[in-house]
């Protein structure tokens, strides 16, 4: 990596750290409360969770196949935060949430998250070892194993959030056939296209990273959303400016 790239990268990281810290301050949040655009899919997710709790049905959360060793592992942390928050929100349900994943380390972390959520809500006795399971080590075997959970008649809400491939169309299609609520989000473009055609509530682009913030998991998530918005504007301005300068002939 060249010096310029290293320096630029380090500057961007430090700026991001500063923005997140500043925007997380209570005084700042009190003066400038975060305002985000409404995402109807997440609103319907809340309602679906409430209905699921009332009906006593289960919730299935699939957090994808990406490993923590890959660059897409950041979406893995978002998935885990979402899993934690959804487990908290569905703590009063008779059926504890079930999580499926396609990676070993992710499966272990998901079990830890579910146990923590159960402990927080004093429902540890309801947790079982198959609630956070590795359904398959390859993408298609992971989908095939998760299909077993999706087709469970006790599951009435499927939240597919993570790194998927086009094979995730099986999950969303099966969920729709079972008349279950389906919210699907992925950081993969092919999966987003498949979800848009097959799921009732797809999330496009970086809305995957906005789910914990919209579920009000913590102030840090909301401040990171604001940081992303700021950086997006900065990046857009830099791209437009660079294109103009290129056209002009400066660079």
């Amino acid at each position, binding site marked *: *990596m060249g010096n310029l790239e290293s320096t630029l990268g380090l500057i961007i990281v430090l700026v991001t750290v500063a923005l997140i810290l500043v925007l997380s301050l209570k005084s700042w949040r009190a003066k400038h409360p975060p305002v985000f655009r409404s995402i109807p899919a997440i609103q*319907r*997710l809340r*309602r*679906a969770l409430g*209905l699921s709790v009332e009906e006593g049905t289960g919730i299935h959360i699939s957090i994808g196949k990406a*490993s923590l*060793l*890959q*660059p*897409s592992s950041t979406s893995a942390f978002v998935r885990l935060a979402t899993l934690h928050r959804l487990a908290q929100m569905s703590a009063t349900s008779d059926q504890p949430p079930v999580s499926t994943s396609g990676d070993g380390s992710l499966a272990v972390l998901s079990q830890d998250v579910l146990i923590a959520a159960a402990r927080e809500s004093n429902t540890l006795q309801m947790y079982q070892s198959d609630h956070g399971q590795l359904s398959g*080590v*390859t*993408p*298609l075997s992971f989908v095939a194993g998760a299909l077993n959970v999706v*087709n469970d*008649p*006790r599951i009435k*809400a499927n939240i597919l959030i993570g*790194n998927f*491939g*086009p*094979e995730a169309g099986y999950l969303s299609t099966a969920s*729709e*056939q*079972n*008349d*279950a*609520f*389906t919210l699907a989000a992925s950081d*993969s*473009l*092919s999966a987003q296209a498949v979800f848009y055609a097959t799921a*009732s*509530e797809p999330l496009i682009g970086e809305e995957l990273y906005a789910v914990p913030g919209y579920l009000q998991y913590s102030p840090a998530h909301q401040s990171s959303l604001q940081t992303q918005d700021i950086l997006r504007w900065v990046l857009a301005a830099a791209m437009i400016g660079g294109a103009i300068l290129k056209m002009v002939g400066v660079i």
Partner: protein
Amino acid sequence: MSEKICPVCNRSNLPNAARCWYCQSLLDDEPVVGEPGAGDQEDQAAAPEVEKEIPDWLARIRARKAIETMEPSDSKPEPPVERKVAEIKPAAPTPSDKPAPSVPSGKTGSISRRPGVELPAWITELEKEVKPAEEEAESFTPPVEKVEDSDWMQKLSAWQKEDEPEEGAAEKAQPDTTPEWLAEFLSNEPPSKPEGTSITAEEFNAKVQTTEPKAGDTEPLGQLDEAEEAMRQDETYDFSVEAELELKKAEEEIPPLDESELEAGFTPLSVELPSESAAPSTKTPQEPVEEDDLDLTWLEEFKQSAAKEPPPAEEEKQPEEESTRPLAPFLGVQEHDWSTQPVVPEEKAGETGAGEGEASQPELPIWMQQLRQIESSAPAEPVKPEESSVTEGPLAGIQGALQTSELPDLYTKPPIYTNKIQVTERQSIRADLLSNIVQEIPPDAVAAGEKPVAAPRSRLMRILVGLLILAVVFMVLVAAPGTSLLPVLYPPETANAYQLVNNLGSDKPVLVAADFDAGLSGEIGFTSQALIEHLMLRNVPLAFLSTNPAGSALMSGMLTSAQVKVTSFDLSTRTVQFGYLAGGSVALQTLASDVRTALPYTAELMPAWDNALLQNVSSLSDFGALVVLTDDADTGRYWVEQVQPALGGIPLIMVTSAQSAPMLLPYYESGQVNGVVAGMSGGSAYEQILNLPGQSTFYFGAYQSLLLVVMMLILIGGVIALVLPGGIRRKA
């Protein structure tokens, strides 16, 4: 807000409270704070001890209230008192009468006035003195002033003197007349008592010894039992009478008073008070026992009368009045109107005699007076109203003995508590309603354990689409194999890839990374076949690795199938299998930094870098090229981001599936990737360039046909969806 004052602990309670919140004692008949008259009377009758406790401003307020309520209340109570006096019927001590009801100890009652029953003299006197209330009030002296000791002693002596005449007077008094003692209470005239009078021991003894019951009084002490028994035989027997009798008995038992004891403040149990005539009887107001054993109406009247009298001048009359007042046990529902009748609280026996030798008797606090009432009323044994004594058997005549003949009536079977839920009718009705509502709810269509069945129409459509797709593929392959619309111009990225491979030498190995899954290995196999065959034809040494466990096995299969066409290439001597590289993109970083550390062994666990093909390789840049076979755009991106900077100028060629080509082409356009073979179209183009037809060309026609068929299906479905109303109803 009016509050009730507890008589025991003297704490304020809610006006509607029945029991004290603090000590759980009954609050009935207690004066309510805030009611006109009741509190005033209590305040005026408060002793100096209470005055010390009560703030001055409160005492002034109470006194002012007492003064205000005194005058109008004088005329008021007469009618109710007369009415209530009329109800009083003394018990007739005749054997023919029914036994008087037993009264528990400490209870006040009233003597029912019945014909033939002689009322105590003090009662009759009270009746006479009701009307001239004002005059009597002036001459009223508190019994405390007369006697240095307790008031109950005065009362006792008053009873002894006035019993007989009062009974006679009671006979004469009709139901409309007020008893004398009661009238005296109602009036403001305290019993006359010279100030400064204190009784000596001799006088006390004389009084005790020489006390003769008046006409109409209760029987002499010797005949007390008979009278007591007669009274008890009366149905309306009041335990207050019982208390009186008990007192008389106690008087008999009291030894003569010693001067030393008197000087020391000993309070004799009974003292003959000089103001007997004027003092109201200390007997309780006459009320039927069966109405309420806790009748304290007379007490209310005492307090009201005490509150009405002028404080400085009339305090002296209080002891006298109290002396003749009937014994007032503590609790009871008062039928009398306390607010209209003066009530003089009794002093506690023995307390005032301790330090009061002066003529002026200070006002006792209300609680003390009430306590004296309690103490003055001798607690009777808990004899039942129906039977006060045994009438037959060896225990006949003994009071308080258990009635063995009536034991079965006394003791009942203990209640049996069951575990049954006590459901009221209303609750059962509501439960039935709820069960009916629940039963009306139709059962869920998807029962537990049952899989939801897809709509038949949807399943049929899916089957039809599948059959159509298969039919198209088979039809093209069977009817027109190899027929396809080939592009005229080759894609530049494919052409570039071909050029790069064509320029490779046979001295440097090429690192081939198989980073694809088994699902898309078919397409990757079709796409990469021509490139691998081209490498084999160039006799370029190949080093294979995979970042997923199945990739190396799949790569071996592809090499085997490629060798079928290029038989000159020896897989055993011209290839090195590194096997599975664990770690994902982290391993790629390690690979980029130090390839020998990242890949120390071959798939056969042999030292990799001892192989002749790799002896001159120490870093990635020592390879001839890097060829990445991937079906995932992210994987290709990782190779570009992590490994490409460390290649050192060697070409990076990517063989991808059609779905990830759009994401990787920008890398080609930016120069980070030197060649791309994307999908079956790229593979077929490469085969055309190589002039070596392969599977890509063979299946490309079917692929094109399938694309068109799917496009038609989507178009038809979209048009139908736009034309038909409504859509898929969202859940939630």
